[in-house]
């Protein structure tokens, strides 16, 4: 344990940089994926053919291992393998693939009578989406967001194999010098980061859907 404390004190600055990179490379894709998945999911909801097409595309994308994607994407998009963009684009693809399903499920879970009531109250298509359908689907979308967030945080580390990877670099460092301390620091920080971001989503969800707890306690 004292070795661990010494290591952390010694490498504090580097660790902070890795942590910062890790946050950047895991959070940016989540935000981007939400920007893609919301309109795509809205477009596909209640269109079974389009839904099954998007979901099977997503399934294929999601089944490609991350290290393979990190190597193949630069060919398609023409950036350097070792650029941050590489990780961010790859994780955005995974996150979008996962989130679309939840957006579609969420929007389709809005009861028909709620949609009809909103229409009767004078909501247009867009205002009904923003004012009624999206808020009602927040719990389902947030559930997907939580899975995506936790998965992303653990996947960023794989980027260490191509010289990126935030906290993942601590793992490679530990492997190279056969030393446990950096690995333990990396594992702990990575799990703490994942759980904190997860908690943040849960809090945001509670704040956005105050009616859920009311209904459950009734």
């Amino acid at each position: 344990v004292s070795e661990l404390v010494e290591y952390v004190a010694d490498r504090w600055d580097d660790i902070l940089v890795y942590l910062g990179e890790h946050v950047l490379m895991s959070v940016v894709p989540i935000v981007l994926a939400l920007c893609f998945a919301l309109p795509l999911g809205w477009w596909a909801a209640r269109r079974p053919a389009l839904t099954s097409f998007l979901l099977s595309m997503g399934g294929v994308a999601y089944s490609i291992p991350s290290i393979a994607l990190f190597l193949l994407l630069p060919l398609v998009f023409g950036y350097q393998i070792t650029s941050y963009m590489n990780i961010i684009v790859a994780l955005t693809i995974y996150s979008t693939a996962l989130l679309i399903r939840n957006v579609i499920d969420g929007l389709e879970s809005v009861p028909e009578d709620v949609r009809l009531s909103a229409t009767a109250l004078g909501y247009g298509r867009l205002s009904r989406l923003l004012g009624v359908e999206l808020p009602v689907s927040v719990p389902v979308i947030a559930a997907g967001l939580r899975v995506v967030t936790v998965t992303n945080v653990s996947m960023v580390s794989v980027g260490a194999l191509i010289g990126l990877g935030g906290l993942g670099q601590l793992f490679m460092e530990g492997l190279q010098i056969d030393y446990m301390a950096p690995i333990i620091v990396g594992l702990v920080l990575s799990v703490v980061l994942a759980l904190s971001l997860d908690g943040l989503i849960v809090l945001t969800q509670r704040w956005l859907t105050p009616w859920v707890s009311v209904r459950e306690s009734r």
Partner: protein
Amino acid sequence: MSNSILAQFLAYVGDPETWTRQGGLLSRIGEHCIYTVLALGLAAVIALPVGLWIGHTNRGSFLALNIANGARALPTLGVLIFVALATTIGLGPTMVALVILGIPPILASTYAGIRNVDPDAVDAAIGMGMTGREVLWRVEVPIALPLVFSGLRAATLQIVSTATIAAVVALGGLGRPLLDGIAVRDYPQAMVAALLVAALAIAFDLFFAVLTRVAVSPGVGGRTVTRPQR
């Protein structure tokens, strides 16, 4: 892709030696499949019974689910290197890491599948005089099968991709040419290996898609949890 890289790529793929020599791509594909099947088998042997038992009795579910969810937050690369350094480098420790990563998805979906069985169906089965064991095997398991398979699918994907990374701790499989290619900047070799890993993952996924279609009773609905009808 510049022309010279494309030319190198084609030359690499076109050379029969690339595939058939000792440690060539064909044997790497074989190794990768063996690691995957072995790790998946071990993970399933551990996670399926536990998931069924927890789902059936609803005992220990809180603990099991939290462990399963927490495990998702563990970075696979870190677990792999941790296990390798804590023990020795080689097949055994790597298998331990792969199995650890394969258990949570199988456990969580098996549990969820059993828990999501309509209680009316279970009551009806009990009413017909079935014993606990019969209820589990003849009612709960068949109804839970789509979710059980989706857990196995998720575990397989996790294992296929982590088996690639396992080459950092001196293992064969498709990660070998992939990481060696990165290390010596032989990108055509790394990319061919990456394409093969992706193809292998998709092939495993398709296998499970077909298996699900064949094995699940036509009376059991969609592959996801069905919402109660209003």
